[in-house]
């Protein structure tokens, strides 16, 4: 792969900075990558140092003056450390920002628990009205960022070094990747777990649908595609979208298998691939879980 999601984010952000409303707020992370943009737009590429509470507070203040902030750091520092600022300095002030997290669930596996961020989407899901984008390929980043920046509301882009081999740029609504016919079990893969999900069910009668926008979830698409069995595969905390599926299918008897990253602190290092395997999110692990669910 020639470039990463972070590269695509930096390049796309340089484009949207042409709009004088756009303002980037950093807390040292990726500051070097934004140096050319900062030289060109010194008042609109702001690095507050390692101060995540201030980073979100500044974004809220900027938005109160009509600016459109893009706020960026590692997912755990961006979403978890400054959660109250997100709740109060953005939502409660009735202003929006675009938050762009890197690190995904376990991109920095060797860095250990402090740099893992599997709970980010679940945490934002406690708030109202957030759009969450989880691109599965670097080529999906640019259109998602541009759309988010053009809006007024709050959005979270969850970037990762995990990626599928092929981009699906128009997959906010559920996009059927493999159709096993009416009534077949439906597997919904969110973002970069699609390739593993497709491989895991290659010789199984399972319809596979993809989305890179878990919030708002395409509930109409889910109702149209779902039979009795639904399998969720999410690259963050297991069960994050269980609530949405249960509410959407509340009037139908159905069974749900929700796969994702476990809650426990594994206290293990290694690589992202190791953690994927330990959480059962590699193709072999997914196949074991899907087979057990369907038999």
């Amino acid at each position: 792969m020639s470039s990463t999601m972070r590269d695509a984010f930096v390049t796309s952000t340089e484009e949207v900075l042409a709009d004088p409303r756009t303002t980037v707020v950093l807390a040292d992370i990726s500051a070097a990558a934004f140096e050319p943009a900062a030289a060109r737009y010194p008042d609109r590429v702001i690095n507050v140092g390692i101060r995540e509470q201030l980073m979100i507070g500044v974004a809220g203040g900027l938005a109160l003056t009509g600016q459109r902030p893009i706020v960026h750091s590692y997912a755990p520092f961006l979403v978890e450390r400054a959660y109250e600022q997100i709740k109060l300095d953005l939502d409660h002030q009735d202003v929006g920002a675009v938050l762009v997290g890197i690190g995904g669930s376990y991109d920095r596996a060797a860095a250990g628990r402090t740099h893992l961020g599997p709970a980010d989407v679940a945490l934002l899901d406690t708030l109202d009205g957030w759009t969450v984008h989880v691109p599965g390929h670097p080529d999906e980043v640019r259109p998602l960022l541009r759309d988010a920046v053009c809006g007024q509301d709050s959005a979270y882009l969850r970037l990762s070094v995990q990626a599928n081999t092929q981009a699906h740029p128009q997959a906010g609504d559920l996009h059927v990747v493999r159709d096993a016919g009416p009534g077949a079990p439906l597997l919904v893969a969110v973002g970069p777990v699609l390739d593993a999900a497709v491989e895991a069910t290659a010789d199984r009668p399972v319809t596979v649908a993809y989305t890179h926008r878990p919030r708002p979830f395409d509930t109409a698409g889910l109702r149209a595609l779902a039979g009795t069995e639904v399998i969720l595969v999410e690259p963050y905390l297991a069960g994050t979208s269980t609530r949405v599926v249960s509410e959407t299918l509340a009037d139908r008897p159905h069974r749900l298998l929700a796969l994702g990253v476990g809650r426990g602190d594994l206290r293990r290092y290694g690589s992202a691939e190791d953690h994927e395997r330990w959480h059962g999110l590699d193709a072999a692990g997914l196949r074991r879980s899907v087979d057990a669910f369907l038999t």
Partner: protein
Amino acid sequence: MTTTTATDLGAFLNRVRAGREFGANVYSTLDVLQVLYDRVLRITPATLDDPDRDRFLLSKGHAVAGYYALLAARGFLPAEWLDDQGGPASRLGDHPDRTLVPGVEIGSGSLGHGLGLGVGTALGLRSQGRTGPRVYVLLGDAELDEGSNHEAIAYAGATGLGNLTAILLDNRSATYGWPGGAASRFTVNGWSAATVDGRDHDALHAALTGHDGHRPHAVVAVVTDGE
């Protein structure tokens, strides 16, 4: 300029009070609010949405009774709203909500949020080339305990954010105090600062207009008698 006499304000405050007892935190804030709205801030009910208005951010959101009374006295909100403060149909909570109260720039209540929002507001105005308006944030000395304030103080000082004023209402309520004076927390980070008697309107006015425009400015208003 219209001024709000103590008598006027007292009448409005009594409508908010409705027989309840107010703590020292309410009374200790009244003088600085009066000086701000009477003599410093360029905000009127007619310019609520003017992008070039001054911004006043009440960070210590619990000091709300005097704030509502003053906003009513200056015509930002109908005086009748004061009679049912905190009621089920009221727009006036025990902490202010900017979406419910005309003239309120931020919703506050949880301590330590106003100064960060003020820094962002000052940066937004600067990037828009608006050199006229100034951002004033009112904090308490106990609120200064919150670490988020120190993130904002260090950054604003280091970058010379000249259109920002922090007003620290020092009624000596911080559990561990601020040895050497609260102003030193600002000046060591490159702010200008003035410490004045929080009851002395002329001294407050001089301090609140004492910024040099090249660095952020702090006004420590000391009120020790509490009432």
